[in-house]
């Protein structure tokens, strides 16, 4: 049944630091690489070498410009993938029972053997987290790399989602957001982690850390010069050369 569980034992999810993300798209590439070659149908590309290439991706990085009422505009790179919502509307609309949210860890998944490719779940998602693969005809979405995080065949440091593992800036964090003592929960509390489009009532598990406030440089914040006058032989040489 595509009813949502009352509660989940864990709330595994991502914390994305908008202050740190440099917009390199490495997470997009590693996500595609891992998920096209492992769990489920591959993520197909259409017209890959032609004039209008396109394909299925589970993670995409937008870039925005934010302009405050006064002061400089700033660029914010914005990775977006499934937020593994507590009230996931994509799950309850599914007519075949293919979409479900796991009780043990809260991950939202698609059982590809049941999906009929109607696309209603993608309509129900405010975040554009689901894409219908045009070759396979079934719905693809972020699995939180469920085939990595519990995979004992991988070295322990690789047992996290591919996007998190590959991020060169350390802008992506993975953990249990249902545990207030977890590193990710602490990070969210410390940095004022936020929900995307809260008015949609989806209660996303993934959180976004807003960009830190920009420093304003005051006159007394400049460092004093640290270079020192030469001593001994160098002092004599300096003076002698000066005198020439």
């Amino acid at each position: 049944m595509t009813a949502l569980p009352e509660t989940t034992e864990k709330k595994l999810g991502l914390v994305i630091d908008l202050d740190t993300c440099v917009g390199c798209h490495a997470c997009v590439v590693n996500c595609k690489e891992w998920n096209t070659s492992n769990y489920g149908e591959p993520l197909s590309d259409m017209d890959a070498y032609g004039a209008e290439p396109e394909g299925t991706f589970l993670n995409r990085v937008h870039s925005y410009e934010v302009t405050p009422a006064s002061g400089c505009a700033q660029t914010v790179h914005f990775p977006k993938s499934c937020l593994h919502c507590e009230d996931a509307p994509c799950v309850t609309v599914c007519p075949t029972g293919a979409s479900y949210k796991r009780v043990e860890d809260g991950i939202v998944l698609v059982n590809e053997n049941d999906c009929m490719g109607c696309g209603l779940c993608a309509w129900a998602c405010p975040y554009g987290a689901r894409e219908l693969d045009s070759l396979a005809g079934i719905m693809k979405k972020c699995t939180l790399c469920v085939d990595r995080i519990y995979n004992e065949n991988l070295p322990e440091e690789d047992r996290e989602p591919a996007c998190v593992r590959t991020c060169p800036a350390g802008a992506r964090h993975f953990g249990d957001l249902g545990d207030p003592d977890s590193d990710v929960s602490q990070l969210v509390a410390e940095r004022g982690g936020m929900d995307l489009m809260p008015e949609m009532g989806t209660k996303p598990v993934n959180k976004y850390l807003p960009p830190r406030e920009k420093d304003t440089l005051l006159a007394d914040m400049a460092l004093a010069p640290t270079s020192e006058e030469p001593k001994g032989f160098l002092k004599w040489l300096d003076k002698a050369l000066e005198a020439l």
Partner: protein
Amino acid sequence: MHPAPSVIVFTTLSGLGFGLLAFLGLGMPDVTGGVAFLFFALGYALAVGGLLAATFHLGNKKNATKAFSQWRTSWLSREGVASVAALLVMAPFAIGRIFLGVDLTALGWIGALLSLGTVFTTSMIYAQLTTVPRWNMRWTPVLFLTHALAGGALLAGQITAAAILLAVLGLILILSWRQGDAQFDESGASLETATGLGSIGTVRQLEPPHSGQNYLLKEMAYQVGRKHSAKLRAIALGLGVVLPVLCLTVLPFSHMIALVAVLSHIAGVAAGRWLFFAEAKHVVSLYYGR
């Protein structure tokens, strides 16, 4: 939203078909034998034809039968169950009318109720989506049900009922367009809430995440319809409501004129349904600065 032809054909035809079946179930018109056969054949052809058209847009048709399983949570699943129930219940009623000359009144009433119930479940597939504010309102089921009732009365040859219901439909179309226009702003969604960056300032897209097309843009960021909105509304209202009402009330009744009224109505409904999809803005389009 992308106005997929299969979905427009489906909602237009099956709405009409189930509307007609509802009237037949209530014994309007009170026909038996060959005439009843023609009416029921038309009702079933429209309803089933529409349902079949809806399966054309499925990516993976072999799993379509699984869609009957999730009726406890999914409106799409409920629609599947309701439509099959309506068609099955109407069948013995139709056989009684056509071949046996008997009127299984109770069965007809249940069939009529299930037929309208099917239209309601269809409407709820759209009305439930908070992500498409234009659809996410009470007018959506009212609109679909009035469409089915007005079109059903027209096909069933119920001239007075059809004229009244068509006029009501016109009114509801106008009211739902008015409310629909305000829905997106009322939803509160903006690029600022979508990115969570509104506390810093105003947000605009600097670079899209991909240079080409993708499923999201094709399916949910369709923009062609909006600029022709006013014209299409006039066409939907003129062909769907005004012309059929004139045919029914002003002109002397003939089968030719009735046919004109029906065809005009179908064309108007299809235009309105095209707009229903094309004009609807999905909140995900905000992320793409649209």
